[in-house]
């Protein structure tokens, strides 16, 4: 038995976390391939054309974050609910279903031409493929829904028989929202404007809506554990954060409705509400730092606390500041669909979602592995090196893409028809920034390797013989 877990069934989180990190590594490798294709255009062509590499890069991101959220849920819901998971067996079955379906889909992308994959999977009958981030074949999308339903059933039954806390209720709301919004991926009207309008109900209402609830709940859980601050205080903060997230983010979706054929009032609604979207992320920064300053115990897992503060700060910078930079309609008119969008996307996803998953992994993994409430000092030092290398690399990636984007806007977007530079000519002009971005990408990979190596040393001299009460007091 693992004495470091409050509930034995929490251990089903382990395969989810491990698989998430494996996919993360794959995501980074394909990111590097694309980074090189940006400057050496025919690299790996035609074996892995850019569109395939990108599909693998973004789909791996989505899937590893989903695995991370699921692992987080299997870990924290039993602990918050003060009861064993309803069915660890179901969690294991769904793990394999999702892992196999995910792996097959990625292999399909890599081994079969996309049109062939569409044909094989009957896309003609109910076309859903070939839209950004929703490239999965119909059968994979159905698989995602089935896995999500089983997952929500399992957790729902757990919460129902156990204690209801703000943390587990917000987590459940976020996860149910995630599943419900994904149903819009089956909506693909013939009219492109309609298609784009509903497409955002998956993409925006995930990342600027319900995922923020998931992020807030995980952050609150880890902060309760790491700081020992009174639950009442943390729960109040959590409510404030998610209230701001939804109040600004729901109508903030309008910032995607500026130029796709939707009516003009979205220019105003989208600008005003999305300009307020940094607020919940700013509140998360205040939240994390305040709680850690007011901590009532010195938790030995310093790395987990670093991730918790880091995710708040980087989410604020990436989603909040870099989002705000181009969210006002008069600015977005020039920046829409340039490298500025790419810059924002990279830092926002890393800061908010990659880092929150690594926060819960950092907190939970030593316990899941039966090591204790913290890994060895050496492991933590390595983990923090990984943190800083990846985070600083991401800052550089964002800055270089922003520079490329500003130059692109200047050359290609601002001049009149006759003077404007073509897309391809502009890309040549900004190539230096793509090279620098690639170098920063290599630095990110180095950080990832160091981060992975830290797991090998978690047990190394970690205080094995912890006081008997340890597993109980958090």
């Amino acid at each position, binding site marked *: 038995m693992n004495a470091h877990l409050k509930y034995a069934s929490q251990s089903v989180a382990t395969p989810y976390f491990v698989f998430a990190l494996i996919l993360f590594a794959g995501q980074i490798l394909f990111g590097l391939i694309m980074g090189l*294709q940006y400057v050496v255009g025919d690299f790996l062509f035609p074996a892995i*054309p850019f569109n395939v590499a990108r599909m693998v890069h973004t789909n791996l991101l989505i899937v590893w974050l989903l695995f991370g959220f699921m692992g987080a849920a299997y870990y924290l819901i039993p602990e918050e609910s003060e009861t064993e998971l309803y069915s660890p067996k179901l969690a294991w079955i769904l793990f394999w279903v999702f892992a196999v379906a995910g792996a097959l889909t990625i292999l399909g992308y890599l081994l079969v031409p*996309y*049109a062939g994959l569409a044909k094989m999977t009957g896309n003609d009958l109910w*076309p859903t493929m070939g839209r950004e981030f929703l490239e999965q074949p119909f059968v994979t999308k159905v698989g995602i829904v089935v896995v999500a339903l089983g997952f929500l059933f399992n957790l729902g039954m757990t919460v129902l028989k156990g204690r209801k806390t703000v943390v587990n209720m917000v987590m459940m709301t976020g996860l149910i929202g995630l599943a419900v919004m994904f149903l819009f991926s089956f909506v693909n009207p013939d009219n492109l404007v309609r*298609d784009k309008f509903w497409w955002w109900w998956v993409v925006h209402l995930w990342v600027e809506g319900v995922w923020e609830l998931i992020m807030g709940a995980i952050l609150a859980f880890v902060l309760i554990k790491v700081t020992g601050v009174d639950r009442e205080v943390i729960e109040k903060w959590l409510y404030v954060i998610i209230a701001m997230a939804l109040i600004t983010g*729901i109508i903030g979706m309008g910032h995607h409705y500026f*130029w796709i054929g939707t009516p003009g009032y979205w220019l105003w609604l989208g600008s005003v509400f999305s300009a307020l979207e940094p607020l919940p992320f700013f509140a998360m920064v205040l939240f994390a730092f305040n709680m850690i300053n007011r901590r009532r115990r010195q938790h030995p897992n310093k790395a987990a606390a670093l991730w918790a503060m880091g995710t708040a700060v980087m989410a604020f910078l990436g989603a909040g500041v870099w989002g705000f930079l181009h969210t006002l309609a008069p600015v977005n008119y020039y920046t829409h669909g340039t490298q500025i969008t*790419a810059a924002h996307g990279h830092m926002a996803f890393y800061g908010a979602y990659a880092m929150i998953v690594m926060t819960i992994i950092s907190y939970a993994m030593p316990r899941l592995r039966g090591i204790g409430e913290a890994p060895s000092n050496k492991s933590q030092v390595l983990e923090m090196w990984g943190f800083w290398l990846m985070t600083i690399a991401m800052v550089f990636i964002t800055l270089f893409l922003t520079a490329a984007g500003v130059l692109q806007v200047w050359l290609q977007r601002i001049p009149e028809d006759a003077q404007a530079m073509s897309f391809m000519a502009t890309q040549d002009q900004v190539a230096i920034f793509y090279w620098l971005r690639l170098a920063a990408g290599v630095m990110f990979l180095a950080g990832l390797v160091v981060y992975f190596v830290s797991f090998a040393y978690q047990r190394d001299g970690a205080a094995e013989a912890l006081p008997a009460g340890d597993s109980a007091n958090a």
Partner: protein
Amino acid sequence: MAETFTKGMARNIYYGGSMFFVLLLLGLAWHTEKVIPERSNDLQLTESVVRGKLVWEQNNCIGCHTLLGEGAYFAPELGNVFVRRGGEESFKAFFKGWMAAQPLNVPGRRAMPQFNLSETEVDDLAEFLKWTSQINTNDWPPNKEG
């Protein structure tokens, strides 16, 4: 936060605020749906345009290009390519030649795969791009380079 601001108040703002904005979004979605046909020339949405959209999707064009600014940033914007490459007079001829010539095999240049589309498919795709160029996009993109 002052002690006078309680957890219950925060919770009520969360429930009340999100409920209000969900309802507002539903209302706006209903109205937007109603005006989309007019803003997108729904009457011109022929069978060929619909088939062309499927060709667009099933070859993952969005994996390199943007369409109305959304997609990947590796290759040119195509929402206005109909206008940029000849319009009514010569777009179709240009497009047919372009699709047939891929990949261009210029060393080091970004390469577009050969998709082996049939003549009908190329024509449908052209119709789809033409229809897309006529959507009322609030005057975006700023110039013809997209």
